[in-house]
C-alpha cells in the first residue's frame, strides 16, 4: 500500500525538485565550479584571460596580507571560543535551574542582539567606542579609570580585541540557548542521585554536566569556527580592516582584491583557499568528538 502511494513518475519527481535545485545550483554550485576555473587564469574582468595554472595559488601561499588576515581570523576564533562559549556555558548553567528568577526574561534579552543586523550592531559599538561621544569612555571616566581610555578602534594593538568583544557580545545568546536546550535534556534524577551521594556542586558540574554536554560543546565550537571564518560585516563597518591592515580578515582580503584591485582570477583562487581553510578547520574541530566516540565504542566492547 504505502509503496504505491509514495512512488511517483520520474518526470513529476524532477519537476517537483526543480525549483530548489535551480536556485541552489545557480547560486552555490555553478559559482564554485566556475571559480575553480577562473582561479587558473590571470584575469581582471575583461576579455583578456591568461592561463597561468597554479600561479595564483603560489602567490596566495606567500601573500602576507592574506595570511595576516587569516591570523586575525584565527585570533578571533580562539578569543571567541574561549569567551563566547565559556561565558554562555556558565550563564546557561546559572539560568537553567528552575528556581532562577526571570528565566524567560534573561533568555529573551540575552538572545536579542543575535537577531539584530551585524551592521547595525557594529554602528552602535562604533559609537560606544567613539573617543568623543562614546559611552565606554564616559563610563571609564566616571569610575575613575581614565588611564584605561584609549582609541579602541584605531590602535593597531587593540583593535582586534575591541572587535572581538562586539562579536562575543552579539552572539552569546545563540550559544546560551543551545546550551540551555542541552542542559534541559539532562534528567533531573541524575543530579538528585549525585546530590544524595554527597557530590558537591563543583563535582556535579565537572563529573555530570560537562561530560554529558560534550557533544553540544563540540557543536558550539564548530558553529563558532564556521561563524568566525566568515566575519565580514563587523570589520567592514567598524574598522574597514584598519588601521592599515591590522584588523583585516580573509573575507575582507577577497573583497579588496576583487573590488579595489580588480584581480578576479586571484580573488577566485583566494575564495577557493578560503573554502578549503574554513572546511578543514570545521572538520578538525570534529576530530576530538569522533575520536572520543570511537574510544567509547571500543571501551564498551
Amino acid at each position, binding site marked *: 500500500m504505502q509503496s504505491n502511494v*509514495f*512512488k*511517483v513518475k520520474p518526470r*513529476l519527481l524532477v519537476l517537483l525538485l526543480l525549483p530548489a535545485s535551480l536556485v541552489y545550483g545557480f547560486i552555490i554550485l555553478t559559482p564554485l565550479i566556475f571559480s575553480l576555473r577562473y582561479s587558473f587564469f590571470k584575469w581582471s*574582468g575583461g576579455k583578456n584571460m591568461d592561463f597561468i595554472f597554479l600561479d595564483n595559488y603560489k602567490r596566495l601561499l606567500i601573500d602576507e596580507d592574506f595570511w595576516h588576515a587569516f591570523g586575525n581570523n584565527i585570533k578571533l576564533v580562539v578569543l571567541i571560543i574561549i569567551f563566547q562559549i565559556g561565558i554562555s556555558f556558565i550563564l546557561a548553567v546559572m539560568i537553567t535551574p528552575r528556581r532562577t528568577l526571570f528565566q524567560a526574561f534573561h533568555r529573551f534579552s540575552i538572545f536579542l*542582539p543575535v537577531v539584530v543586523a551585524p551592521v547595525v550592531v557594529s*554602528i*552602535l559599538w562604533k559609537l560606544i567606542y567613539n573617543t568623543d561621544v562614546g559611552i565606554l569612555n564616559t563610563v571609564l571616566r566616571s569610575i575613575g579609570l581614565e588611564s584605561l581610555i584609549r582609541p579602541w578602534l584605531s590602535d593597531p594593538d587593540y583593535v582586534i580585541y575591541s572587535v572581538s568583544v562586539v562579536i562575543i557580545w552579539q552572539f552569546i545568546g545563540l550559544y546560551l540557548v543551545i546550551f540551555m536546550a542541552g542542559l534541559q535534556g539532562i534528567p533531573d534524577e541524575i543530579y538528585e542521585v549525585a546530590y544524595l551521594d554527597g557530590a558537591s556542586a563543583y563535582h556535579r558540574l565537572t563529573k555530570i554536566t560537562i561530560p554529558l554536554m560534550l557533544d553540544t560543546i563540540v*557543536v558550539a565550537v564548530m558553529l563558532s569556527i564556521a561563524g568566525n571564518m566568515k566575519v565580514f560585516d563587523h570589520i567592514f563597518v567598524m574598522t574597514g580592516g584598519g588601521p592599515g591592515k591590522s584588523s583585516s580578515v580573509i573575507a575582507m582580503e577577497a573583497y579588496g582584491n576583487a573590488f579595489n584591485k580588480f584581480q578576479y582570477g586571484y580573488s*577566485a583562487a583566494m575564495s577557493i583557499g578560503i573554502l578549503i581553510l574554513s572546511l578543514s578547520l570545521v572538520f578538525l574541530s570534529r576530530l576530538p568528538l569522533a575520536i572520543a566516540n570511537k574510544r567509547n565504542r571500543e571501551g564498551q566492547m
Partner: protein
Amino acid sequence: MKILLRKISRVFRNIFLLVISITSIYPLLWTFMNAFKSRKQFSVDNMGLPNELVFSNFTRAIESSEMDVYFINSIISTILTVIIVIIAGFITGYVLSRYVFKAKKIVYSVFMLGMLIPIHGLMIPLFIQLKALGMLNNLASLAITYSAFSLPTAIFLVESFVKTIPPEMEEAAYIDGANIMGTMFRIIFPMTKPVLSTVVVLTFLNAWNEFPFALILINNKALKTIPIGMANFSGEFSVEYTQLLAGSVIAILPVLLVYAFFNRQIVSGMITGALKG
C-alpha cells in the same frame, strides 16, 4: 550555615544574571533613547533620558539619507526571498521525506552540504557569474541568492517535520481520489504550519540583515537595502549621530517586532539549524 551560604550565592547569581541581561539590551535601549534627543542634548548628555522627544531625526534620516528607499528595497527582497524559500523548501522537503526514489540520499546530502559551505567563499565567484549574466543591480538576483542560503535549513526543517505526520493521511487522501499536488498542498501544507512559520521567520531575519552579498551585488543607489544604506551612512565624514541612531531604529524596528512575537520559533529554529550543521 550551609543554607545561608546557598541563599547568598543564589542572590548573587540572580544579581549577576540581571547585570548580564541589562548589558545585552542596554545598547539597544540607548539607541532608542538617543534617537529622540536633540543634537544639542546628545552632545552634552548621551546617557540620560531625552528632555523632549525630537522626531526630526527620523524625518532627516528619511529625507537626506533615503532610509525610505532602502526600507522598501529591503522589504521587496525579503518578501521575494520568503516566498521562494517557502514554496521551494516545502515541496523539496516534502518530496525528500516521503517519496521513494534512487537518488534521494544524494539529493538530500547535496542540499545539506549548503549548511556546511562557508558562503563567504562564494562572494567573488557569485559576483563574477551574475555580472557575466547581467544580473547585478537586481533585487530579484538578491532574493534568489538569499533563498539559496536559506533553503538548506528550510528543507531540513520541513523534511524532519513531515516525517512526524503519519503517512495514513496521504493514503486516505488518495483513496478519496486526491492527486499528488492536491494532497501536498491541501492536506500536508496546512499541517506543516508550525514549521513553516519558523522557516518564514528565520528566512526573514537572514534576508533582512544580510550585508556582504547585498554590498557586492547592488551598487545602484536606488536599489540598496537597509544594511548597505546604514553602512554608507555611518561611513560619511560628518556623521550626525542622532540621525544615524534614528536610522538604526528604523532598521531594527521590524526585526524587534518579529522577535517580540515569534521569539520561540526563532530560538527553536536556530537551535535545530545549529545542531544539524
